[in-house]
């Protein structure tokens, strides 16, 4: 399947999210956990979702690929390219869900030392400003929608 990188959505249809957490570890430790495939595989993924693969080419323009196995056994791949790499302080990379995202999003992670801990700040930009259901989708919501559709169809069939 040929894949040209999707364009970002128009400004008016995009949102930005910032999420932060203070973690008791150094920026160096956290930067390594975030960029080394062997470490990523150990912690990446929501509850009940297993990280089945991580490839990281850590250089500007380098690509990454992280695979998450969902409860229904499908694998959701998150892919993108690195734009900014400033160890141990900052990472910026494009982000899209392979086969699902119609536009490219962007994630910046900052690791700000705060004494013996680190403030980890994730800024996720260019999030499409539309219902999940408006888009072709797999994943968590997709499983549920599929089931709802199947059950509705059986009901009326």
């Amino acid at each position, binding site marked *: 399947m040929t894949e040209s990188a999707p364009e970002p959505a128009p400004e008016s249809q995009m949102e930005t999210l910032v999420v932060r*957490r203070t*973690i008791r570890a150094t920026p160096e430790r*956290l930067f390594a956990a975030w960029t080394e495939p062997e470490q990523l595989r150990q912690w990446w993924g929501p509850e009940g979702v297993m990280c089945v693969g991580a490839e990281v080419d850590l250089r500007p323009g380098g690509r990454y690929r992280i695979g998450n196995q969902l*409860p229904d056994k499908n694998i959701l791949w998150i892919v993108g390219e690195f734009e900014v790499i400033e160890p141990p302080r900052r990472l910026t990379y494009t982000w899209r869900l392979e086969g699902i995202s119609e536009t490219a999003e962007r994630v910046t992670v900052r690791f700000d030392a705060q004494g013996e801990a680190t403030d980890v700040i*994730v800024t996720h930009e260019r999030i499409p*400003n539309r219902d999940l259901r408006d888009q072709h989708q797999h994943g968590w919501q997709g499983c*549920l929608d599929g089931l*709802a559709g199947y059950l509705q169809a059986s*009901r009326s069939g």
Partner: protein
Amino acid sequence: MRSSVKSKNQSDDRLDLVFRALGDRTRRALLARLAEKPAMVTELAEPFAMSLPAVSRHIRVLERARLVVRKVDGRVHHCSLDLAPLKTAESWLAHYRKFWEGQLEALARYVEDDDQKRQR
């Protein structure tokens, strides 16, 4: 601010319950049967080589996930599908907020537990 944190956890919890409910073959079969039409627990139990209390336990899991609604009428339990939780429209923003909060929590546990082990 407190109440918005609470509602985020609630929808997370609800999603957990739905997944747990759907993660069992018998429960999926029960849902498929109820998709055809509502039924009493005794009717639902028939096709399964399973005791009535066992089926009732499965139904309770489906109820807790709010996929099934049970009405008790004397000694008869009527069950029907409740598809409302499956249709909750959610924005990408809300989805990603939960996603990243979960990710940072997992990262914290990973590095903090790891450091604890190394200190032993």
